[in-house]
């Protein structure tokens, strides 16, 4: 069992996607991030509870989760 992850409270995930990329407004920092469609899909899945702990523990997701944490979009829980 790996870490549990959640959205940082206060993030509304305002975003807009075109083609394969998205832009996301960070409600806490006021920054705007350029994200891949995959990263955006993972954030939305975390928000909606559509991703399991086992999936989040997969090594393939480690870098992506770390980068999203670095942007203060998600946090361990």
């Amino acid at each position: 069992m790996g870490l549990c992850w959640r959205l940082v409270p206060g993030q509304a995930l305002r975003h807009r996607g075109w083609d394969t990329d998205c832009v996301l407004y960070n409600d806490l920092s006021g920054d705007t991030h350029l994200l891949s469609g995959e990263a955006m899909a993972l954030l939305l899945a975390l928000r909606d509870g559509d991703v399991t702990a086992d999936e989040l523990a997969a090594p393939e997701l480690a870098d992506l989760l770390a980068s999203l944490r670095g942007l203060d979009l998600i946090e361990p829980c």
Partner: protein
Amino acid sequence: MHTVDSLTRAELGERLAGPGIHLRTGRFTTLLRSPIGSVADGIHLLYGAYPLQAGGFADFHLDLVRPASPRRWLRPQVTLLYDGRSLFKPLPLDQAFPMFEWGLNWCVSSRANRYLIVHAAVIEKGGRAAILPAPPGSGKSTLCAALVGRGGWRLLSDELTLLRLDDGMIHPLPRPISLKNASIGVIRDYVPGSVMSRAVTDTVKGTVSHVRAPPDSVSRAADTAAPAWVVFPRYEAGAAMTAEPLARADTFMQLAQNCFNYSLLGADGFAALAGLVDKSQGCRFRYGALDDALAYFDGLP
């Protein structure tokens, strides 16, 4: 409403040196006062078609005055006062008119936060606007001057793209086009009949001159336009013309970097910029000849 050219040069000078003029540019009214002759010269030459409001409210209060310091006997200077306060370093007196232009840009870019303000030229044809964001030296204003002088485009602004937050339309702010250094001669040759202010040398931007906005653009200052294209121009001497499509997310990020108040507006700025990018095609545009550039813009879908 009267326009500036209803006053003779002498009358204008007296008004500026006395109660001032309420100069209307786009949605903004500036109460301008100055006893400096070159300011009156510049206003007389370049702002003749602009409305003069008969007193009342002004968005910005600007005075261009000669500071009373011992230095005035050696190297005369000019100071810009905003609401009676000096916010900027004095400049050589010869730069008084450019200082007015730069000061008015500062007023709008730092105060007009009901708009998302992009540091970009913007032109219109058929109700659709092309936005040209670019850093200094990229040839943005030169291209803008050529497009409105010979390409049949309407000038909305050569410097400040004002995107309304409520409906995503672009509000014009047609004012003189600022040219620097070699661009001055380029436009003088390329757009015969251009009315230009006296070139002022040794400014922080080099030699500068301002080109009068076309009268039709000034008279249509209330006609908004819908964003349709975002073109990041770059002039390279002798380069073949290229136009490389830009992904919308990249267009968004580059536009955000060129906004004056994107961060200040927060989520509203994000929504406004996303709406603009939804409606616009982005590209990186390199050109080496104005004829090629005009042909490209003429063919925008």
